[in-house]
């Protein structure tokens, strides 16, 4: 009932291109549009270049590792101090073995948990900022959130190590174990605070401003008429915000969440500092140390460069390809969700 006026307006907001298209139809794209198209084409070009580069660069590793790369847990550079020997048609250090399962699991788990925390919190903050506080306080509060977006990754990591990790070890872990301990994955133990939970919390903190800023921005641009219409139907202010304004900015919310997810999947420094750097084992609880693909690439590049066969660096590049594929899949799924969601609504 309340959704009806919102639906009409969001239709107009979401598809402005249609009108302009109709008008220009039959004329053919002018130079201005072609110029814009050229600029837009740079993004696919960059992606293709990076992907091609990675594929060519990682090719020997892809041949050497085979499909087992995705399903094995062991990452061993082998003996870098003896001559490499031929194996699977590639020169490899003796004992070298590369598996990415640990890093894939760590990345997906930490980003997933981070989003579970970040999305509701971000929506709450943007609603609070857009409608909850008086106009006078809006700007300073917004600046506070924007400041969060500019805290360098390393500083998050530092704060994570000095404040968050001990907090996780001594407060969160016992609390979670006491309340949710009956669920297998939440029976927390050991780890000293470094691990999945700390990484997820830091990631959530880093993703929140990205989602919040975008959603807040969209909320402030909801036409006054839509709000008035909702009030006219007798809604409380919160109902107006949650039932009228939020659905109207749905595209912005989904776009923001995907942006945030991208940031979480690729975040490197802060996660590296609080994740505990798991190697060769999968997380068995929310307190387990993990490694994410991005942080592992950064932390291992130095060691990998000591491999005279080059296979270690190439295998890191292969991790990057896997991350690439995961990002593509995640985005594809998100897109399907958006489409099915809008169909259901329409």
């Amino acid at each position, binding site marked *: 009932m309340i959704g009806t006026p919102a639906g009409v307006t969001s239709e107009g907001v979401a598809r402005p291109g249609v009108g*302009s298209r109709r008008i220009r139809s039959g004329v053919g794209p*002018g130079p201005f549009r072609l110029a*814009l198209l050229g600029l837009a084409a*740079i993004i696919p070009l960059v992606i293709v270049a*990076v992907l091609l580069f990675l594929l060519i660069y990682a090719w020997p590793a892809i041949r050497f590792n085979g499909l087992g790369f995705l399903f094995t847990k062991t990452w061993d550079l082998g003996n870098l101090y003896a001559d490499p020997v031929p194996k699977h048609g590639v020169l490899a250090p003796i004992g070298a073995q590369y598996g990415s399962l640990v890093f894939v699991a760590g990345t997906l788990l930490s980003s997933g948990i981070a989003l579970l925390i970040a999305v509701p919190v971000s929506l709450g903050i943007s609603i609070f900022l857009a409608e909850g506080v008086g106009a006078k306080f809006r700007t300073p509060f917004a*600046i506070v959130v*924007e400041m969060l977006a500019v805290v360098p990754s390393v500083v998050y990591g530092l704060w994570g190590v000095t404040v968050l990790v001990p907090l996780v070890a001594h407060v969160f872990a016992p609390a979670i174990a006491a309340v949710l301990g009956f669920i297998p994955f939440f029976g927390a133990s050991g780890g000293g605070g470094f691990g999945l939970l700390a990484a997820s919390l830091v990631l959530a903190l880093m993703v929140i401003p990205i989602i919040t800023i975008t959603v807040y921005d969209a909320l402030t641009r909801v036409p006054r008429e839509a709000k008035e219409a909702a009030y006219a139907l007798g809604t409380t202010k919160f109902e107006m915000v949650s039932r009228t304004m939020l659905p109207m900015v749905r595209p912005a919310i989904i*776009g923001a969440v995907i942006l945030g997810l991208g940031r979480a999947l*690729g975040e490197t*420094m802060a996660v590296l500092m609080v994740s505990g750097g798991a190697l060769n084992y999968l997380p068995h609880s929310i307190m387990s140390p993990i490694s994410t693909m991005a942080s592992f690439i950064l932390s291992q590049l130095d060691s990998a460069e000591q491999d005279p066969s080059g296979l270690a660096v190439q295998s890191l590049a292969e991790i990057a390809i896997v991350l690439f594929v995961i990002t593509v899949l995640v985005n594809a799924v998100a897109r399907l969700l958006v489409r099915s969601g809008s169909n259901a609504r329409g």
Partner: protein
Amino acid sequence: MADLSATRGSMLEAAIGKSVPRSVSWRRARSSIGWCLCIIAFLLVAVPLADIIVLVVVRGFSAFTPQLFTQITQGVSGGLLNAITGTLLLSLGALIIGVPVGVGGGIYLAEFGNGRFGSLVRFLADVLTGVPSIVLGYFSYVTMVIWLGWQFSALAAAITLAIIILPYMAKLTELVMRQIPVPMREAAYALGATESMVVIRVLLPVARPGIVTSILLALAISVGETAPLIYTAGWSNYVWNGRFTHEPVGYLTYVIWSFINQPFASAHALAFAAALLVMLTVLVINLGARAVLRKA
């Protein structure tokens, strides 16, 4: 204004409330709970942020001296002139390359991007935000720094940063443009305006605050990035000498990342001073942009 609408809301509630009293009190309670949750969400972020800011400000300010802005870095002591100028150089370079491309691409997506190509670009932009910056950094290292022989350089670093901010710019620009009501375009086209006139004279001015916000976010990202610069800009103890290639550049995040790992108090002081500078820089830009927007 908030008060007024609240009053009006409760008046309406009161009017409706006579017929369904229980429902109204429940709705009121639910609204209050909703607001409480929003406030809790805000505090959840505000408290850690306050803690981070206190950490950086307290330790950063105690390291603030005039020489920070006048001297170059000597090992892990001295000033940060080289890093301050370097960060400005690299970020501006990234904006110069990345903003036109990102804004142009975003306009295309919003105005003409309803076809298959548009959704492909949109999709790949999302993919690009998920590529870890270290991977882009290493890509640039092998292609530009080594293959093209640019060595550690401002150009390789600025291009890498531009690639990183590109998808954010494009996506945010598109979001902003799409929120401009269709009638504005229709009116302009009805007056016989060409596509370029509609976009540049009608839509861009309306979208300007949003685009400035996205440029700010892009600037924040490029000022705060570390990983992609380690392998492209390298690091330099000296102020940039004007060469776009074959000359490494210093930057503030390197100081944070690297100096915090050193066993000297002077190194830690510089690291926190750099962290504070990064945050202050963006705060100043932020406030400046707001002032500009208010005037316009």
